[in-house]
């Protein structure tokens, strides 16, 4: 067991996602307590004190984001739960939506109370069908018991929730871009400043938080910031939901206490690698993350993994990040050139086309890697990939262009010999293998 639990602290049964089951494990008590005994600013202070960091990719302190909004400034404010989970390798918010939707809803009510929000949204990716059905049923249950709508629990606080289904665009996971989608237009990311807490949805102050970040709020209000701080490490309090996939025996979503040994997690909790192969590399937090630092290697090699712990600071010092918690395990014998080809095709496909370096750069890198995989690579192609990656870095409004570049740079830096081999011989050093055989 990878440590203590916050979101997976119950046994999943056929009806454990229902309102009744959630209440039976203490659900909605924090809401009652907050509405009756706490001022909105005290709720925000509790989140600040908890040290909760965002779980969507950037690990920005959630409380500090909330402090960007003055609940009493007389303007409308909006809260959006980002459930546009599309980062390859990431499927942990789906777990919350399917198995603990009321933790999200109670938390959104608490956040709305803290931030003076009358209308809140969940932006859920368009392809998620069962997660949407579960969430939608939970919302109707909550409305049915007066937990949303006018004068909630007789407190005078009113809040409505709209579940907004996307229509197939990875870029909507970028918080400012989903605003455009909700406003009925193309989902183009927006320049900051102004921050979204100054000018967001409908030009009003807006907080966008990841599903897992928000869902943790109710636990913190129920148990207190100190109890949350007692879990995890000093600089990374709490837990993370890690979704594990790839060449691993027991893929799935695990709740991991931050600071847990990575080797133990992989080899014991996840059952080790498929086919008893040695580990080649791990993509730790989705094939990209929203972190906008220049040296952000997205791939960790086997030796690096063995001595790491799972927390934000250790991964950052290793030159990567826990990102979205989407961990992809890669066994020895896998062709990294073809893996990069998939990643670059993905970024090219998903680039929204707004910024020239990303629109042109992702396409350019995609054409170069396709050429290499077709056996027609040229000796200068590795330099070309590096060159385009460098000019994508920091020159675009959102992180998609940067991420495409980081993916290429990390793969080339760590596995350069494989790329050279492919170009020189016109074929893969590992027979083009993607599967573990």
């Amino acid at each position, binding site marked *: 067991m990878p440590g203590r639990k916050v979101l997976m602290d119950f046994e999943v049964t056929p009806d454990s996602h229902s309102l009744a089951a959630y209440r039976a494990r203490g659900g909605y008590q924090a809401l009652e307590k907050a509405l009756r005994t706490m001022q909105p600013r005290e709720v925000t202070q509790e989140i600040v004190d908890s040290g909760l960091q965002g779980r969507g990719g950037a690990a920005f302190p959630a409380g500090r984001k909330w402090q960007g909004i003055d609940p009493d400034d007389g303007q409308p404010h909006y809260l959006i739960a980002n459930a546009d989970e599309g980062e390859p390798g990431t499927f942990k918010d789906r777990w919350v939506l399917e198995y603990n939707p009321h933790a999200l809803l109670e938390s959104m009510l608490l956040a709305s109370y803290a931030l003076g929000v009358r209308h809140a949204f969940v932006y859920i990716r368009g392809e998620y069908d069962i997660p949407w059905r579960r969430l939608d049923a939970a919302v109707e249950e909550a409305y049915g018991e007066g937990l949303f709508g006018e004068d909630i629990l007789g407190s005078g606080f009113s809040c409505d*929730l709209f579940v907004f289904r996307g229509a197939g665009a990875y870029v909507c996971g970028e918080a400012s871009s989903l605003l455009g989608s909700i406003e009925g237009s193309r989902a183009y990311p927006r320049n900051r400043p102004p921050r979204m807490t100054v000018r967001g949805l409908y030009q009003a102050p807006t907080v966008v938080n990841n599903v897992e970040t928000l869902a943790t709020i109710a636990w913190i209000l129920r148990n207190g910031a100190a109890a949350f701080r007692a879990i995890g490490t000093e600089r990374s309090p709490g837990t993370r939901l890690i979704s594990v996939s790839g060449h691993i025996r027991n893929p799935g979503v695990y709740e991991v206490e931050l600071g847990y040994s990575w080797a133990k997690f992989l080899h014991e909790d996840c059952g080790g690698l498929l086919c008893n192969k040695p580990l080649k590399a791990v993509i730790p937090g989705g094939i990209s993350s929203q972190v906008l630092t220049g040296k952000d290697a997205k791939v960790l090699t086997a030796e690096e993994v063995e001595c790491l712990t799972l927390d934000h600071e250790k991964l950052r010092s290793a030159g990567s990040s826990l990102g979205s918690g989407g961990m992809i395990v890669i066994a020895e014998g896998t062709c990294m050139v073809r893996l990069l080809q998939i990643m670059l095709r993905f970024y090219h496909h998903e680039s929204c086309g707004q910024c020239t370096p990303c629109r042109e750069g992702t396409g350019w890198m995609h054409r170069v890697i396709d050429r290499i995989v077709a056996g027609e690579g040229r000796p200068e192609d590795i330099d070309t990939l590096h060159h385009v990656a460098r000019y994508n870095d920091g020159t675009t409004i959102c992180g998609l262009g940067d991420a495409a570049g980081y993916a290429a740079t990390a793969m080339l830096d760590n596995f350069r010999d494989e790329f050279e081999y492919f170009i020189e011989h016109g074929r893969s050093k590992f027979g083009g293998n993607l599967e573990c055989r």
Partner: protein
Amino acid sequence: MKHLIPEFEHLKKRLPPGHDATLLVPCLRRVQEDRGFIADSDIDGLVEYLGVPRIQIEEVLSFYGMLRRAPIGRWHLQVCHNVSCSMRGAERLLDDLTGRLGIQPGETTPDRRFTLSTVECLGSCGTAPVLMVNEAYHENLSAADLDALLERLD
């Protein structure tokens, strides 16, 4: 789309007043669910109902991957070919499908029974490979599962 307006009016109740354009994507999704695609007459109807310019609707339609302007086959088979699925057999699944159906991704069988597509990450990486059939995910899909599944889709 006019018969769907009562449903749209119901959705409005949970939105802040004065932001009807927010219903654009939800309306387009609902129209597509109803008709199978979005027709010119639907766009005309939404221009009138939501009060948004036609060009804005066209822009949205050409941006989001799930929205379409033309009908497709009865069963839309979408194979995820991103990293995790490829590492767990998505390429073999896609080869199997193109072989059986005699069509490539992006094409529809002549009897209009199947349309085949490839799609990027569906968030089903831990249960890879995944095939999305219309709205439903079919996960951990083996060749034997595929046999049984295709049989059921008439």
